[in-house]
């Protein structure tokens, strides 16, 4: 079972929580139910990060995903009108093929990842401190860091341009 400082039951509960909420996102017919399920899924993933000795990622996950991305998605749901009705309105024609493909991909990936020789697996690695991470971010990974800021600026401008409605000129 998963090693570490915690009882294996923690892993089982978190895994069941994340997978159940993930299935909820995919299977709920009402889009708003999917969104709420997604928020709980992201919270469960944050707990998974905390169990994996990555408290910084857990906090950023809650801030960005649970805080920001969920709000954006819920706004998008409220701004668009969703049709209610039959099964065909929620799932498209390739649903059966998609299910088979997803199951097959899961089986292949699981077999490969379990049988692959990925070298020694320590029971517990050292947790990188916040100081170490910030030093890495501004020293070794400074180029990707700047690129990400460029991407964020581009995304911001792009979102404004796309969502801005042109005023009718008299």
């Amino acid at each position: 079972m998963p090693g570490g400082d915690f009882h294996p039951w923690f892993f089982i509960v978190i895994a069941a929580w994340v997978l159940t909420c993930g299935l909820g996102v995919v299977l709920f017919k009402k889009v708003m139910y999917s969104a709420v399920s997604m928020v709980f899924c992201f919270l469960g993933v944050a707990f998974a990060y905390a169990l994996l000795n990555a408290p910084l990622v857990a906090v950023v996950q809650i801030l960005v995903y649970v805080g920001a991305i969920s709000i954006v998605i819920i706004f998008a749901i409220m701004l668009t009108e969703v049709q209610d009705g039959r099964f065909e309105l929620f799932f498209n024609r390739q649903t059966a093929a998609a299910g088979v493909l997803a199951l097959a991909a899961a089986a292949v990936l699981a077999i490969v990842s379990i049988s692959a020789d990925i070298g020694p697996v320590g029971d517990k690695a050292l947790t990188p401190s916040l100081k170490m991470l910030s030093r890495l971010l501004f020293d070794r990974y400074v180029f990707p860091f700047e690129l990400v800021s460029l991407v964020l600026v581009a995304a911001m401008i792009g979102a404004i341009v796309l969502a801005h409605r042109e005023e009718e000129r008299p």
Partner: protein
Amino acid sequence: MNPLDWWLLLAILLFCIGAFGVLARRNVIVVVMSLEIMLNAVNIALVAIANFRGGSPGAGTLFSLFIIVLAAAEVTIGLAIVIANYRNRRTVQTDTYDELKG
């Protein structure tokens, strides 16, 4: 199975759930949500491998942080496109996005 395998199994299952959502759902917003779930699954795998393998400490954490930032940018742009398209077409169903179909 070693401890890492259990976490990787969780990541794989979550990834495939998200992939099913992307392939099977008709509402574009649900497709975007499923994409986010796939990105989260990849992040779980990254953080788990960074935790259980020595390697270069901190790299896994930073990579997952970069992925979170890029996911935020992606969802902003994606939903802006969905809203802009909804304004013209009054629909969010994926199969009505067929203007480029020959």
